[in-house]
């Protein structure tokens, strides 16, 4: 084994490492961050062992840093993810994905009779319960579970 060439996933010089992604959410995270349209060097790994999650995914993106707004988008699919910000091969900052108290324009309301599904307008949710992941539509006032959401 030892003489086999190690498959080198290059250490990042500058960029972002997203860790602790639940395996079944990995590709949702990819699309939420629009990684499929990104030119940077991207490494995507899945089904690694994780004490917390059982299985986890990891994404490394070279030369790209995300805004807090972009990061908060991720909270609806994977609230416990960690982002490591790498500069000059060093982790200079760790960011935890936290569920914001409000979500605008990210999640679709699952009530077909909600005005947001019938009018060209932005959706708006209040996070009613962070622990239980309950979102409440600002308009129709219906509650929905974060596990059942559809993204816009």
């Amino acid at each position, binding site marked *: 084994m030892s003489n086999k060439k190690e498959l080198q996933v290059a250490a990042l010089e500058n960029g972002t490492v997203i860790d602790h992604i639940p395996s079944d959410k990995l590709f949702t995270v990819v699309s939420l961050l629009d990684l499929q349209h990104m030119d940077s060097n991207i490494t995507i790994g899945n089904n690694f062992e994780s004490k917390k999650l059982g299985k986890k995914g990891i994404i490394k993106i070279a030369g790209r840093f995300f805004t807090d707004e972009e990061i908060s988008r991720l909270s609806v699919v994977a609230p416990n993810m960690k982002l490591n910000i790498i500069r000059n091969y060093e982790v200079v900052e760790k960011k935890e994905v936290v569920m914001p108290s409000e979500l605008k324009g990210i999640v679709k309301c699952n009530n077909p009779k909600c005005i947001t599904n019938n*009018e060209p307008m932005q959706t708006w949710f209040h996070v009613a319960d962070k622990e239980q992941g309950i979102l409440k539509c600002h308009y*129709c006032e219906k509650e929905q579970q974060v596990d059942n959401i559809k993204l816009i």
Partner: protein
Amino acid sequence: MENRSLVTIANHSKERILYLLEMAQEFEKKPNRHLLDQRIVATLFFEPSTRTRLSFETAANRLGAKVIGFTDPKVTSSSKGETLKDTIMMVSNYADIIVMRHYLEGAARYASEIAPVPIVNAGDGANQHPSQTMLDLYSIYKTQGTLENLNIYLVGDLKYGRTVHSLLMAMRHFNPTFHFIAPNELKMPEEYKLYCKEHHIHYEEHSDFNEETIANADILYMTRVQRERFTDLMEYERVKDVYILHNKMLEHTRPNLRILHPLPRVNEIAYDVDNNPKAYYFQQAQNGLYAREAILCDVLGITLDEVKADTNRIMNL
């Protein structure tokens, strides 16, 4: 400018509710005022509702306002695909206040965020219907002399009944005891029972509806059990006659008991109840006029003191 729209009263404080009820009381003393002279009230009914519309238009007329609007969305541009936003922005150019009924939930909230004039929600789908709740509260207050410590029995469709849900939430300030009387398919949803627990509202559930169940009621709030709500029509056939109030059931009820119903009724209150002094549903509808006069004034920034001053002026004439 502060947006004074009325979208819901679910978050109204106790003081705010009592303030609006006191204002309604002033309008009951004297319904015809000139408080809204020179003002234009638009009533936009994207979904027909004759009862609510007539009540709002009467309130506007009795306050001296002029009324414009539509009663049937088929004749408006929304049938041509115009967005709600465009309709609201257009009407805001003409009217000082917009009263709207819409079949979509959240429509009034959205309208209140984009309109430069105040919006009054006259019902948005299954969501909110605050003027109905106000008139229900006013009817309870007027007939019982208080809103505190009452036994309120909600009967019929407690699952889809928007009015019972709003009433339940608005009563949280007043230490009520609720009794939920409904067939299994139309039981009070879990979220509202949870709401009761969170707000320390005592409640009991019953599936039978008879003289004994309602013996201690102060308020009996009847609603319609609709056939289309049932997935199991056998179940509907079984329960459809169970939740009907007959006059003979009222014999041993409390003297202060009053029977409310948001109307229209179909057969859930037998006609022999109408002549019983405990029947209150027609006066309840009349109270809607006073509640809506108060709502129209409040959203335009007319205060209780101004209404009272006007009462005094009129009384002294």
